[in-house]
């Protein structure tokens, strides 16, 4: 048999382009592909030490276990595993989800759970269910960079609430809610990653958690609690999830197997009260009918072995050590003008540099030294965050972390020195003259002190 001739989609001509441009939905105007995306394409080069990813380390998952489980599925349930499944997900998958949530003290009703294609789809479904164009959606500043395009694609009016070492400033939130109410506008939901936040690494304090759920109930607004990292705690005491504090009335919970098992299986979930869930299920059905049956079978088999907590514990040991190495490296190689968070868990550290450094441009410079990070602007909708960066420590080895942070520190030092040469004085001392004035809003981008509660 001869192979059919290799046929690829013909690339569009400029005339086509004009034609398509006329067809684009209004929402695509705000769906920005960015310069950053092109820079990020370069970070994929093998010689680049990338602290830009958000990748869990999947290399420690035992291949033998993987093979045995897939074999078992093939031998015992091939037909079902290759078939469509229910839109809500299998009962057995939802049992696994209850087990994971139980580990953090939550006891949802299985009926309130829907299995999604990764946690990302859960965010999408919440937006799809709640957001009309122009509706206010409140989130943290900075927020999960991957959530921004979702909000944008539903044309939400994204309002970001300042964050500090204790997570979202709930007093600020209260002010925003009050202002919206006074303006007769109802926010559809508050999106929050309260525990080991992406990108900032900070955790919402217990007091603020309580206040947040009170505010939600008072204003009758949904809180979408995105909790991918809660079980990845390296120090300190666990805090109750918002879902637990609220009892599931106003909190919609978003979870994922990505960080505790594998992102490749694309399994996440949402927990919502029945009236909301009904719409979410319809939305899911329209999107993709059901989540991968095969990977649901995989999770079922894996959980049947009852060793998932052991695996998470092994990840915690690895990530804790990597976090510590990164914190040490930052201390050793970043200049005194820099500040960063000291997360008790999760995958990220957020560093903020003097405001005259644009981390987008810095990334271009850093790439010449074969090292990458995520520029802070990706975590804001309003152009803030230009002097911050997100650093990942979970997907890279300890040696790579040391070397990567050293190289970034070097290019920062180069820029600090250059700026000081240009302005003719040491930055840090409040001197008038050439030193750039704080651009509006830049000073309130996570103004962490360097000594922030060190050593935990």
């Amino acid at each position, binding site marked *: 048999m001869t192979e059919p001739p290799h046929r*690829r989609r*013909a*690339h*569009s*001509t*400029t*005339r086509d*382009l004009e034609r*398509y*441009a006329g067809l*684009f939905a209004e929402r*695509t*105007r705000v769906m*920005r*592909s*960015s*310069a950053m*995306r*092109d*820079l990020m*394409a*370069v970070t994929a*080069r093998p010689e680049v030490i990338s602290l830009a990813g958000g990748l869990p380390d999947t290399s420690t998952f035992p291949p033998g276990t993987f093979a045995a489980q897939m074999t078992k599925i093939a031998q015992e349930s091939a037909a079902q595993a290759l078939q469509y499944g229910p839109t809500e997900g299998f009962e057995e998958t939802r049992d696994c989800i209850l087990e994971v949530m139980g580990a953090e003290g939550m006891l949802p009703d299985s009926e309130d759970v829907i299995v999604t294609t990764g946690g990302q789809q859960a965010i999408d479904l919440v937006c799809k269910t709640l957001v009309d164009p122009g509706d206010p959606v409140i989130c943290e500043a900075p927020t999960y960079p991957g959530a921004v395009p979702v909000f944008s694609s539903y044309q939400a009016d994204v309002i970001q609430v300042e964050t500090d070492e204790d997570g979202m400033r709930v007093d600020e939130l209260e002010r925003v809610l009050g202002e919206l109410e006074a303006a007769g506008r109802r926010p559809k939901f508050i999106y929050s990653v309260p525990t080991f936040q992406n990108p900032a690494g900070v955790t919402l304090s217990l007091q603020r958690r309580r206040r947040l759920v009170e505010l939600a109930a008072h204003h009758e607004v949904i809180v979408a609690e995105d909790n991918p990292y809660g079980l990845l705690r390296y120090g300190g005491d666990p805090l109750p999830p918002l879902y637990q504090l609220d009892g599931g009335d106003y909190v919609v919970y978003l979870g994922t197997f990505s960080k505790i098992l594998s992102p490749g299986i694309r399994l996440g979930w949402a927990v919502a009260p029945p009236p909301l869930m009904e719409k979410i299920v319809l939305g899911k059905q329209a999107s993709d009918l059901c989540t991968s049956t095969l990977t649901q079978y995989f999770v079922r088999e894996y959980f049947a072995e009852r060793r998932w907590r052991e695996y998470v514990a092994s990840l915690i040991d690895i990530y804790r050590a990597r976090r510590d190495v990164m914190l040490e490296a930052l201390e050793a190689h970043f200049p005194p003008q820099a500040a960063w968070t000291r997360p008790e868990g999760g995958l990220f550290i957020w560093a903020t540099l003097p405001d*005259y*450094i*644009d981390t987008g*441009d*810095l990334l*271009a*410079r850093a*790439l010449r030294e074969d090292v990458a990070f995520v520029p802070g602007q990706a975590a804001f909708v309003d152009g803030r965050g230009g002097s911050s960066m997100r650093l990942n420590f979970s997907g890279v080895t300890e040696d790579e972390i040391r070397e990567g942070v050293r190289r970034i520190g070097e290019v920062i030092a180069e*820029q600090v*020195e*250059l*700026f000081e*040469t*240009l*302005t*003719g004085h040491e930055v840090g001392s409040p001197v008038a003259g*050439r*030193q*750039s*004035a704080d651009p509006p809003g830049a000073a309130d981008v996570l103004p962490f002190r360097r000594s922030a509660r060190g050593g935990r």
Partner: protein
Amino acid sequence: MKVAVLKGGRSLERGVSLRSGARVEDALARLGHDVLSLDVGADLVRRLEKERPDGAFIALHGPQGEDGTAQELLEILDVSYTGPGVAACALCMDKVAAKHAFVAAGVPTPAWFAFNQTAFRDLGAGDALDGIEARLGFPLVVKPARGGSALGVKLAAAGEEVPGALVAAFSYDDRVLLERFAEGREVAVGVLGDEPLPVVEAIPAESDVYDFEARYEIGRTRFACPAELGEAEARAVTEAALGAWRALGCSGFGRVDLILAAAGPQVLEVNATPGLTDTSLLPMAAEAAGLEFEALVERILELALAGRPRAETVG
């Protein structure tokens, strides 16, 4: 005919280059050529030696592809390639060298001053900033000497914005220039062989500068091709563009970027390997001239195979 398409590489414009390259590969395949797709890397010379293509289509952007490096290697391997020769590429890539050549040839270009990091570090060039700013006025443009796609290009509205803009520009290159801001319409002239294509105008939809994002995003920028210009205006723009093209010794194909200011056209730069993506200006101009993308690619290839005058190559 076996045609190698050189694309990708380590440049910051890798993504753009891959898109240009993919589009060219499609066109070449439809034209019946045997396409050898090369994402350039350490094995480039080895692969070219092994495959012995009849010609090379250079769809690289940024240093290495646009500065004459790849062209030099192809000369050594005796493979014909598209676009300008080694010397012209080197001039195109370096905006400072190009501007000197423009001035020498009487081609209008905005006033500028250029420095490397050493000048600021060791020679106290920072002290000259006030004088420079007084002569160029505000706003002024700060940009890396080498680099494309508006990466690292900043507009400084006042003196306190200049140091930050310089730090940003130095992220991309060791040499930067401060340039007088030429206010006017953003136009470009593609050149094919020695023939100018119709003038294209880029009209940004939202932001006031045609930046990296506006450049590569469908719908972000409106293009007018041919640009709505008076006959005299169009002639002045085309003449300035051809003047710049010749001043740098270019051949094959390329694109000249200009600002059409109230006082007349000002040449910003010449692109030796202009973008060929869906949103690129040169294919748009070719189409306005009645040349579909495939025909454009075929013509560019013909020009490459016809060879370039010996004087233009090194040696």
